[in-house]
């Protein structure tokens, strides 16, 4: 059963609600969180509905709306196939979960920053929050390069404003740094788009395949890749990430981690999917870059004492796993890379939110001053362990399946000796992940409870429950990977020559 204009609704409904909140926000205050959750849940249901049809072998579904055809063929097209839909759906569900989570969190944060009376701040927060979700989902569903760029920038502006308004220490400077780096990345992407337009005369993603000129193809690939590597904070472009992710409000930290990972999807969709011939040159360099980033990110994370910054740094290394999978250019590797990206954002969302909960309830970020919280906050501790299990790829959860599929791909590529070495190093590096995810758990949730933390209470259910739902998704993906692979697999394998 198809809802008419389903994907248009997915994009427009949050935008409309965001505009309405500007007018009615004053009367609702923090209840706006429920409104935001409601609209995102609605769009999630719409996408699940499409997903069921895809699961049954119907589709891909395509919707197209005219934007501007006067000079360039610019259309708003929305494509839901096996690859884009799971990505969009999971991102949307994370956004919905975080909307609930942010109700309590923002109450705490706004009170801290602006005092109790600032009801207007809820309006600001939730209206731009919804735009943010639209940006993310829009990138995943786009069929048009310009449209994709529009959504990328649409996600960037709200996150800048949020960091600037609600972030932590030195937030203005960091917001600026975040914006500039990401804007540079987007600008590189735009240059790539412009070059592609010269070759193909069209902005459609599918037209990239017609790019016959090899040297032009190389440059297009290079610019798109650099643009997204900046956004993904691979080694060499990673400077901004620990700051930006360390200091922004945790309710959107998870979502920003999603932006970082989204590069994987875009690379698969544009470069692997449409311009594989030109992209092949970049396979090995990307593989090496990914492995450097994995190891570097791992060690960087080990060195952190700050609870939030720890997870921020681990994003660098975790995102690089997905790049590793994609760089193998094998069907299994790419599918695993996308799968791992999905599982990582689920896990990272939970972990960032835990950091937020701990910060919210205790006011402490330095792990050396924390300890023994498991007795006070049993649900939070459980969640933290589950999230860490996703990140460090323990079997029943989704991370394991992602890594498993991905490493099959890496070993398939391992005919070349570099591939083999890379695979070994990457597997060894996963031990680093185990160390840096479980070590903080030991420190924060176990051991002696410092006397100053005697009065800490468990977080409210509105914060914890959404996270459990996310973990449930990760669990389903873990024991039944077919749920996602059945959608992703055919698309990826049809992309290969």
């Amino acid at each position: 059963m198809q809802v008419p204009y389903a994907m248009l609704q997915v994009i427009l409904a949050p935008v409309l609600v965001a505009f309405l909140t500007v007018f009615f926000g004053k009367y609702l205050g923090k209840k706006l969180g429920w409104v935001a959750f409601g609209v995102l849940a609605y769009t999630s249901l719409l996408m699940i509905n499409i997903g069921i049809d895809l699961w049954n072998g119907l589709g891909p579904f395509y919707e197209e709306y005219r934007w501007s055809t006067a000079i360039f063929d610019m259309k708003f097209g929305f494509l839901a196939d096996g690859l884009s839909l799971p990505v969009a759906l999971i991102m949307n569900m994370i956004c919905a979960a975080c909307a609930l989570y942010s109700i309590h969190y923002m109450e705490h944060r706004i009170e801290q920053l602006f005092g109790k009376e600032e009801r207007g701040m809820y309006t600001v927060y939730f209206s731009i929050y919804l735009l943010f979700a639209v940006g993310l989902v829009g990138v995943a569903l786009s069929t048009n390069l310009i449209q994709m760029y529009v959504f990328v920038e649409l996600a960037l502006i709200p996150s800048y404003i949020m960091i600037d308004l609600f972030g932590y220490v030195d937030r203005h400077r960091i917001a600026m740094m975040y914006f500039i780096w990401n804007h540079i990345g987007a600008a590189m992407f735009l240059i790539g788009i412009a070059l592609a337009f010269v070759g193909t005369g069209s902005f459609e993603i599918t037209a990239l395949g017609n790019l016959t000129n090899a040297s032009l193809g190389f440059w297009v690939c290079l610019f798109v890749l650099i643009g997204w590597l900046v956004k993904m904070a691979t080694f060499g472009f990673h400077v901004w990430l620990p700051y930006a992710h360390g200091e922004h409000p945790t309710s959107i930290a998870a979502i920003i981690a999603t932006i970082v990972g989204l590069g994987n999807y875009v690379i698969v969709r544009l470069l692997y999917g449409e311009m594989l011939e030109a992209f092949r040159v970049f396979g090995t360099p990307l593989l090496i870059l990914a492995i450097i980033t994995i190891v570097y990110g791992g060690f960087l994370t080990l060195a952190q004492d700050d609870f939030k910054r720890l997870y921020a740094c681990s994003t660098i290394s975790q995102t690089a796993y997905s790049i590793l999978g994609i760089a193998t250019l094998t069907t299994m590797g790419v599918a695993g890379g996308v799968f791992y990206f999905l599982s990582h954002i689920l896990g990272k969302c939970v972990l960032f939110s835990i950091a937020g909960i701990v910060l919210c309830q205790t006011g402490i970020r330095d792990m050396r001053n924390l300890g023994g919280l498991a007795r006070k906050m049993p649900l939070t501790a459980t969640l933290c362990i589950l999230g860490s299990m996703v990140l460090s790829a323990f079997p029943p959860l989704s991370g394991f399946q992602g890594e498993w599929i991905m490493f099959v791909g890496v070993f398939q590529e391992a005919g070349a000796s570099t591939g083999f070495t890379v695979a070994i190093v990457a597997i060894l590096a996963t031990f680093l992940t185990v160390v840096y995810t479980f070590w903080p758990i030991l420190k924060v949730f176990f051991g002696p409870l410092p006397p100053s933390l005697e009065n800490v209470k468990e977080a409210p259910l509105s914060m914890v429950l959404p996270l459990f739902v996310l973990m449930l998704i990760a669990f389903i993906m873990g024991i039944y990977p077919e749920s996602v692979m059945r959608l992703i697999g055919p698309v990826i394998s049809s992309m290969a020559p």
Partner: protein
Amino acid sequence: MFSPPIDILLIFAITTPIIGWFAERIKKAHMCGVYSSVGLLISLWYIYELFRKVASNGTQSYPSFFSSQLRIDMLGVFMATIFVLIGIFASVYSLRYLEKDTGVPLFHSLLLLMISGMVGTVFAGDFFTFFVFWEMMCISSYTLVAFRKQRWEPIEAAFKYLIMSSAGSATLLFGMSILYGMCGTLNFQGLTIALSNVGSNVWLYVSAIFILIGLGVKSAIVPLHTWLPDAHSAAPSPISAMLSGVVVETGIYAICRVGFTVLMGIEVQWLEVLAILSLVTMFVGNLTPLLQTDLKRLLAYSSIGHIGYMLAGLATGTVLGLTGTLMHIFNHGIMKGAAFLCAGMILYRLETREMKEMAGIGRKMPVTAAIFALSLFALTGMPPLNGFISELTIIMATVEANMAWLGVAVIINSVISAAYYLRTIKALLQPITKKEVEEAKEGPLVMLIPLLIMAGLIVILGIYPDILINFARSAAIALMGGG
């Protein structure tokens, strides 16, 4: 006599002081502002009529001074639409903005004269008419910059502006005289035909250099831009919006017109000269504002950067590039106009232009701050706002014309410009430090209405740009194809 829109503007310009005299008698000082706004609206209606005529019957002719005539094609109609549109916003905005000043009727009269000068410039079919209206625009703009004569800054800025700009005008006249000597005519069409017979000779180059310098002063091409930041920041805000948004663009229009009709015979690649100028202009225009702390100076400098983008589109020499330039002229007029009017609103409430002293004003004036932020994002070239569409068109045009380096420069500049626009937005959001800011209120409704309409245009033209693109393209074709 000079086509209905200009006639209406001139009649209203002459009668506004009389209305103002009566208005002062009956203690309704804002009446002449309303009167001049009505005049602009009527003029806009006539431009629309003209648009329909031009669209169906092609170029229209009207008599002008002596034997010369006005030739109105799509490009002229396009530019005139922008001028009058921004003029309406500025005029409505001035109703309240100037309530503390004396000589308001004269202000409105000069504003109308300036707009009619600009409209006449773009309608002109020969250099003679062009020059007369050009000077009319210049002289009234000098006076408007110096409008608040009791302060030192406007006087000094106006003097600098006057000296540089009239030297530019004289240079333009000198260049015209050489062209006249070569061809015996000043009609644009006649010149094109005559020059194609003459072929290229040294006098053509000399006159081209003189004309380009003369127009370059007015359109603030680096290194002739030094008057701009002073004049644009010292003028009253609605006039800053007019100067930055449209007066400077009249120079760009003139370069289009002269370049594509008269100088096509030149063998030297003048387009590449323009490309270099554009590169320098956009870098200077985007690097200098990084150091500014004065809000209006910052915006004025960023105008120079945008002039660079427009020249980049022009330098491609293709219909696509020219379309991009014209669209950017239109969009820049609205964006920069909105930004200057918002800055004026803050100035109206706080009496300061220093960004430090207006920290946190966004909390007290949320609507103004939101529109300001919107216009700044549009100026940065953020999608889906209108600035993005036109910058994209320019970038695409440069890439198609094998000048990809210029397109890359535009992209780099938009990144650089993001830095100072963000700094401005940040200043609005910071915690409040000053008592003056704490006591500030949202601006009056009369001033907010033009801003809201402009904000609406920024969004609508970004999401649904087709009308503007088609309009701009038909204007570009009128220039490139019709001769």
